[in-house]
Structures are given as C-alpha cells and as structure tokens.
C-alpha cells in the first residue's frame, strides 16, 4: 500500500466497479470494511453530477467566446503605419473618443461627429477602393416593415497616434495597458512613459503590487517613489509592498520612501511578527533604523 505502483491495477478495478471483495479488501488494507462501499457510492454520485449544470449559460459563454475572438483580432491587427493614409480619420476618431472621455463640447467640428458618422466615412472610403480601418463583428440584423434593415454591430478601430507624453488619451491607454495584461515589454514601456494623475497613479500602484513580473513591479514602484506623490493611497501601497512583497529590495525601497508618519510601532510590530528569515530580518532592522531616525 505504500507505493502507488503496487496497487494501480486494483485501484483501476475499484474505480471501474470490477474489484472483487477480496481485491477491495487488499486495496483498502487496514481500513474499515465498509469503506469500499462508501467509496463506490461516492464515485457513483460523482459520476451522476452533470458538470454543465454548474457552469454559466450558453449565451454567457457565447459572449465570452466573442470577447476572446475580438481580443485576438485586435491583438493581430496590422502594425502601425500600414494605415497611415487613415491618420486624419483616426485623429478625428481619437478626438471623438477624447471628447467623450472628458465630456467637453469645445472640440470644433469633430465634436459634432457621432461614431456612426465616422464609420460611414470609413465605408465611403472603402467604396472608393481604400481599405477600412474599422473591423465589424457580432452583427445582429433584422428587416423592418418599411424595408430598412435594423443592425447592431460591434466596431473596433485601429488608431495611429502621435501625441505628447502627457496627453490625456496617451496616459489613459498606458494606464489601461498596465492593468490589462499587455505583453511584458509593453507593460515596462507603459511604466516608463506613464504620466501624472490619479488614474495613472492607481495603475502604477496596481502594477507595483500585483504584476506577475518582478521587473514591472520594481519599475512601477520606482515610478511611484519618483513622483513623490503624497497621496494616502501611495503610502498605503508602500505599506503593502513592505508587508507582502517577496523582494527584499522592493521592501527596502518602499521603507525608505515611506513618510515618517507611517513609521511607527505598529509597523515594527507587524514586521516583527512576520520575521521568518534573513530577508525579513533585514527589512525589520531597516525599519527600526528609520524609526530611530524619526525619533531623533
């Protein structure tokens, strides 16, 4: 019974209901005699559970599949530059998006454009022989009594932009890339070029705390510290790094950057309780140093 190879065949027989009482007794060894019966009953019950009953509906899965396919299409869009002749239209769309984002109405002619106008303009260009920057998916349509077609379609577009680093849209895109599973290289670039503002700060905090890649967490933490933002959420993020980050380097960086107000006996006590190895001891030692410096 100690080595699985010794009873592989018996277990197969048990699981498939072929085990004789003698084989079952040998398999179960020193267990109570009724264990076989109970195990067989549980296996039988498990076999009667329909796993599909525990899953979402078909329509929910359909939406999920569509989202995956849309994401694949978006990720495989042609490289920037291919649609350079569409720059004016893309710029108009960007202006529209920014207008929506900031809720202003002083954007000149572009602010009168609706998304439908932009897509129609794209269709006219397509009819004139140019490729469209828009992709259509998930079309739903029906014919109306008057002969018109009622349509609903998802539209995705590729934008080629040249903008200042502190541009609102640029930073919105960078912040979104940080928290939405862009590639490692893109995340690192997003950290490097991320501008200011609470939205970006929150994205940097999320990256510093939760990005699966150490280099992104470290760079995001450094960016947060460089900003020297006094926001309470930044200080809480530093505390979280000190408490939970695996990297001693990052914990020490966070300790160094933490405001004096946050260095107190509570922090020392917490670190003391968590001290379990050399790395943690170094953090605790440094925290005490900072507390002493603050006390002077």
């Amino acid at each position, binding site marked *: 019974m100690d080595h*699985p*190879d010794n009873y*592989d065949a018996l*277990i*197969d027989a048990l*699981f498939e209901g072929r085990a004789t009482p003698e084989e079952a007794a040998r398999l179960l060894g020193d267990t109570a005699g009724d*264990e076989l019966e*109970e*195990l067989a009953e*549980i*296996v039988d*019950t*498990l*076999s*009667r*559970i329909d*796993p*599909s*009953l*525990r*899953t*979402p509906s078909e329509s*929910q*899965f359909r939406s*999920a*599949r569509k*989202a*995956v*396919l849309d*994401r*694949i*299409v978006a*990720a495989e869009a042609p490289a920037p530059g291919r649609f350079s002749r569409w720059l004016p239209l893309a710029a108009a769309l960007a202006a529209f998006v920014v207008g929506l984002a900031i809720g202003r109405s002083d954007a000149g002619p572009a602010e009168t454009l609706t998304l439908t106008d932009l897509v129609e303009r794209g269709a006219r260009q397509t009819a004139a022989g140019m490729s469209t920057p828009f992709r259509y998916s998930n079309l739903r349509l029906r014919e109306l009594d008057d002969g018109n077609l009622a349509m609903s379609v998802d539209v995705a577009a590729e934008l080629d932009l040249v903008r200042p680093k502190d541009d609102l849209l640029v930073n919105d895109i960078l912040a979104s890339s940080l928290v939405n*599973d862009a590639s490692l290289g893109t995340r690192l670039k997003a950290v490097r070029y991320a501008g200011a503002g609470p939205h970006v700060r929150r994205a940097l905090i999320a990256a510093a*705390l*939760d990005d*699966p890649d150490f280099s992104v967490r470290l760079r995001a933490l450094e960016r947060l510290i460089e900003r020297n933002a006094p926001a309470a959420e930044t200080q*809480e993020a530093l*505390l*979280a790094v000190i*408490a*939970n980050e695996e990297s001693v380097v990052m914990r020490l960086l966070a300790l160094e950057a933490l405001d004096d107000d946050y260095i107190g006996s509570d922090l020392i006590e*917490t670190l003391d309780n968590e001290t379990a190895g050399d790395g943690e001891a170094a953090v605790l030692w440094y925290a005490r140093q900072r507390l002493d410096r603050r006390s002077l």
Partner: protein
Amino acid sequence: MQVDDEELVRATLAGELSAFDELMQRYERLVYSLVVSFADGHDGALDLTQEIFFKAYRKLAAFDGRGTVKAWLARIAIHEGINQAKSATRRQARHDAWHVVRPTHTLAPQDDEILSGERKRQVATALERLAPRHRLAIELRYLQEMGIPEVASVLECSEGVARNILFRGLRKLRRQVAQAS
C-alpha cells in the same frame, strides 16, 4: 462527422478563427469548471476562462500534439487558476495585514441551487473543500470523464501518482461527506 481537435488546431494556426471558436465551444465548460474554485465568484471565473483561451491561442503554435488538446487546455487552466489564487491570496494577506475591511470571498453559485438531490449537493460541496490537487484529480476523472493517462498529463505526473492522488482524494472526500452529514 466531427472534426477532431488536432485538425481544429491546425486550421486555427492557418488563420481560421472559426476553428478556434469551435475549440472554445468544446472546452469552455471544462475550463470554467476547473477554475471556478480558484476565481472570485462566477464572473471572475468567466473572465478567467476568457483569459485562459486568449493565452491558449497565443501558445497554440507551441502545442506539440503529444497529449490531447483537452489535457493541454486543462493544464493551462490549472496553472492560470493557481496563479489567480496566489494573486488573490497576496491581495487578501495585504489587506489583512493592514486591517482593511474587504468583502468576503464570493463563492460560485451554490450547488444546492442547481443540483438535484441532497447527496449530490453534499458530495459536490465536500469536493470544493478538498485540497486543489485532490479536487482537480476527481473533477477531471469523474466530472470531466478523463482517463487516468489524461489526468496524469494534466497534473503533470505519472499515471501511478495520478491514481494515488485520485485514491487519496476520494478517501478525503468520503471523510468530508461523512463529517458534513
């Protein structure tokens, strides 16, 4: 006649997204079932399922055809599920450490809402309480009806070890059910 999974993989790699859509349809329930206990509720599991298929698409060219597509997808799902759980644990620990109140973990829809029969509910509930490796082995073998070689492939262990995990998992499940009842 149904196109086999490997053919769908080849068609996807040749650029036919509809083939990947078909693969998702075949295995979305499997992937969801494997990750639901790692995720934060029903919506979290559905999001994670999407994420897993997106990653699977990106890794498709690396599928070497040595195992089944089903087992390959299940392996990705389990790895992603474990990563998700680790991330959630880190977040929870951080909040706990600094005494920040956080909403309690939301469980997937309770089985008693959808399963018929008290016994099934007891067994399904007890299954959720098992350690991940035991739970996954049982889920793959009995609910997803994989053979031992496929279970072993998903759990990345030998068939003997898979049987051992399965057997020990069943015994623990039996004890859990007995305690609950």
